[in-house]
């Protein structure tokens, strides 16, 4: 090496290299072990001069040659991070999403993930929240639909009613188009009165609401209670050490808000959400709501929003993401899971890497398949291929059903779960009949849901062909075998003890010897064979 090119690396650079190596860490079979790294740092508090330990997580995409690594402070312990890490299947797409989440969170930029079902949008937003706050902490989730009302997200005035009848009457009225129009009018009127103080605006709102009550034939003196919706709540929510949440309009820390299925939301909901648009592509520092007289709601330092939706071209009733919203967020578009990732996910499910294995054999379990990854791996290949084929068909739509039901990873998770203790015994061998057990589970979790009878028949035939037909044959230990034959070999191997196997080998050997002697006996009786050869045979 040219000595002129040698240079001393700074401690920061050396630390960066160490973290990057951990992010890119792989196991003996090249499996991903990194992606998320936990580190503790000891810092001296400048004022008190006391030593303080801070916890950090580093998130980066281990599939990248030079990953961009995001460092974030966390409340979670090292043990919690390890558990959470194990619950994430290390697919390329998972880290792509996680990396986008971490980077946008750090810069307080709202993120929108558009991607098909089963890509992990919800799951990874949940896991990210756990990585920051500890195991079991969920983000504030809001699910949009065509019926979502702006007031659920922003704020509303709720009438205090005494009787059930009054309650119902109010609800009916508030749900009516007339009431929606009137409430919108009140909002516009209040917003126009710029010169009024907040108190004056609130008084005006009260008067208008009383008038509205009167016009609807309800008690004019109705008391009203103000209620914030999901957005202002998340802006000023603080998670307390005991796990509870408290809301403070001015001093709240803020929390993670996940607004799901944004593609289903109506334009008025999108318009309301545009209030979150801040400067330089960040989240707004504060928002104003007419409902509380225009009082500003500050955005806490830990407030962050992630939106998610399915692509409009593939799913019924999804709108294209509103261009204004698309401009206000970091837009992350994801495609379908790659075949490699789907195979990896299936492998994780069927080798039971994601969960604690049962300590003792559960009822209904003939073979502890969860302790035999070599069998799980073969099963996973079949399920993955079948899942892929059926998903392609379902994406085209189904005869006899308007709603589309795309497959999710949960479907294979259910099959894997069932395979532990819904096992069928082979009557001939007394051992697990893996082929039949798997078929039954696939029928239940994949095929029984189909409304299209023709598709059901075709997929059933395809499954049979995949398991037992010639086209499903693959090379296994040098031989071309059907999946059923492979399953039988593997089950046989692990079902029998060493002693039983030896006994079986001995029986086979004795049978072979007997066959040879039998053959020699026939040859010796054959008159066409010369005496010299017979002599050799006798020897």
């Amino acid at each position, binding site marked *: 090496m040219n000595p002129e090119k040698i240079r001393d690396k700074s401690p920061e650079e050396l630390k960066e290299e160490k973290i990057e190596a951990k992010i890119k860490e792989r196991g003996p079979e090249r499996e991903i072990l990194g992606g998320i790294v936990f580190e503790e740092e000891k810092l001296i508090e400048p004022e008190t001069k006391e030593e303080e330990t801070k916890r950090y997580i580093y998130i980066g995409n281990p599939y990248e040659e030079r990953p961009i690594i995001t460092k974030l402070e966390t409340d979670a312990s090292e043990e919690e991070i390890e558990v959470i890490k194990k619950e994430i299947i290390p697919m390329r797409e998972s880290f792509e999403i996680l990396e986008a989440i971490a980077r946008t969170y750090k810069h307080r930029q709202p993120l929108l993930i558009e991607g098909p079902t089963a890509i992990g949008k919800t799951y990874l937003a949940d896991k990210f929240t756990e990585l920051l706050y500890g195991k079991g902490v969920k983000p504030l989730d809001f699910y949009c639909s065509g019926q979502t009302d702006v007031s659920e997200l922003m704020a509303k005035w709720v009438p205090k009613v005494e009787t059930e009848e009054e309650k119902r009457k109010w609800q009916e009225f508030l749900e009516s188009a007339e009431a929606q129009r009137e409430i919108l009018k009140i909002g516009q009127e209040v917003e126009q009165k710029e010169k009024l103080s907040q108190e004056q605006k609130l008084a005006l709102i009260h008067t208008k609401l009383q008038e509205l009550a009167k016009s609807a034939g309800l008690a004019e003196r109705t008391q009203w209670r103000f209620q914030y919706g999901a957005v202002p709540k998340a802006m000023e929510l603080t998670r307390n050490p005991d796990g509870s949440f408290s809301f403070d309009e001015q001093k709240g820390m803020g929390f993670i808000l996940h607004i*799901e299925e944004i593609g289903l939301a109506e334009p008025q909901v999108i318009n309301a959400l545009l209030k979150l648009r801040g400067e330089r592509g960040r989240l707004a520092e504060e928002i104003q709501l007419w409902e509380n007289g225009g009082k500003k709601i500050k955005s806490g330092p830990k407030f962050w929003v992630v939106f998610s939706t399915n692509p409009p071209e593939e799913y019924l009733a999804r709108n294209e993401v509103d261009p204004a919203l698309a401009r206000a967020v970091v837009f992350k578009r994801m495609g379908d899971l790659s075949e490699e990732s789907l195979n990896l996910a299936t492998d994780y499910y069927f080798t039971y890497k994601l*969960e604690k294995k049962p300590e003792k054999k559960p009822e209904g379990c003939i073979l502890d398949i969860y302790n035999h990854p070599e069998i799980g791996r073969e099963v996973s290949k079949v399920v993955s291929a079948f899942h892929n084929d059926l998903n392609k068909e379902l994406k085209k739509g189904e005869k006899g059903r308007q709603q589309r039901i795309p497959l999710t990873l949960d479907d294979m998770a259910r099959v894997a779960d069932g395979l532990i203790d819904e096992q069928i015994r082979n009557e001939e061998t007394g051992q697990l009949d893996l082929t039949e057990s798997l078929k039954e589970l696939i029928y239940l979790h994949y095929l029984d849901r189909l409304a299209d009878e023709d598709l059901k028949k075709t997929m059933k035939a395809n499954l049979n062909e995949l398991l037992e037909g010639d086209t499903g044959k693959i090379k296994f230990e040098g031989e071309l075998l059907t999946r059923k034959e492979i399953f039988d070999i593997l089950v046989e191997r692990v079902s029998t003890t060493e002693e039983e196997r030896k006994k079986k080998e001995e029986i086979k050997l004795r049978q072979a010897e007997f066959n040879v002697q039998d053959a020699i006996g026939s040859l010796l009786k054959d008159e066409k064979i010369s005496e010299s050869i017979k002599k050799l045979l006798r020897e």
Partner: protein
Amino acid sequence: MNQEKLKTFIRLLQKCQKQPSRTFDLGLVIKESKSQINEEEVFNQIKKIVPIEKVIYDQSLLDEDVIEKMIEAFKKGKWIFLEIKKDIRSPLLNQLKHLANHNILQLIDYQGKDIFGMKMSESSRVIVFAERNFIETKISYPHFYRLFGPTLSLK
């Protein structure tokens, strides 16, 4: 009604937990258009197997009322048989999604808490009952079926 299928349906709801989140599925019972079986019969059959309460989601019931009934049932470790007779409004849909994804209820400003969170009891489950034609024509949420795991179709 096919008793075996009903038993399998209940067993799956009781037993199956999705990896890795370890959440229980919500169940769906669909009455096909030509079916002669009524919801009362299904409910009574299920009642023989598990402790369950029936809630009819129709014009007379608000979303908040249904959610309250769910909370009460979960406190007692009971199952809920929710018969859908009107399009599902946003507050209830939100809670069904929370239940399907995390087996929790998450409500804002409820019972004096800024965020009210409640885990569904280990022994509770939710079964939704609806007619096929109603689902296809009246339910506006396009991924209604995806809320559920095991589905029992009454033919």
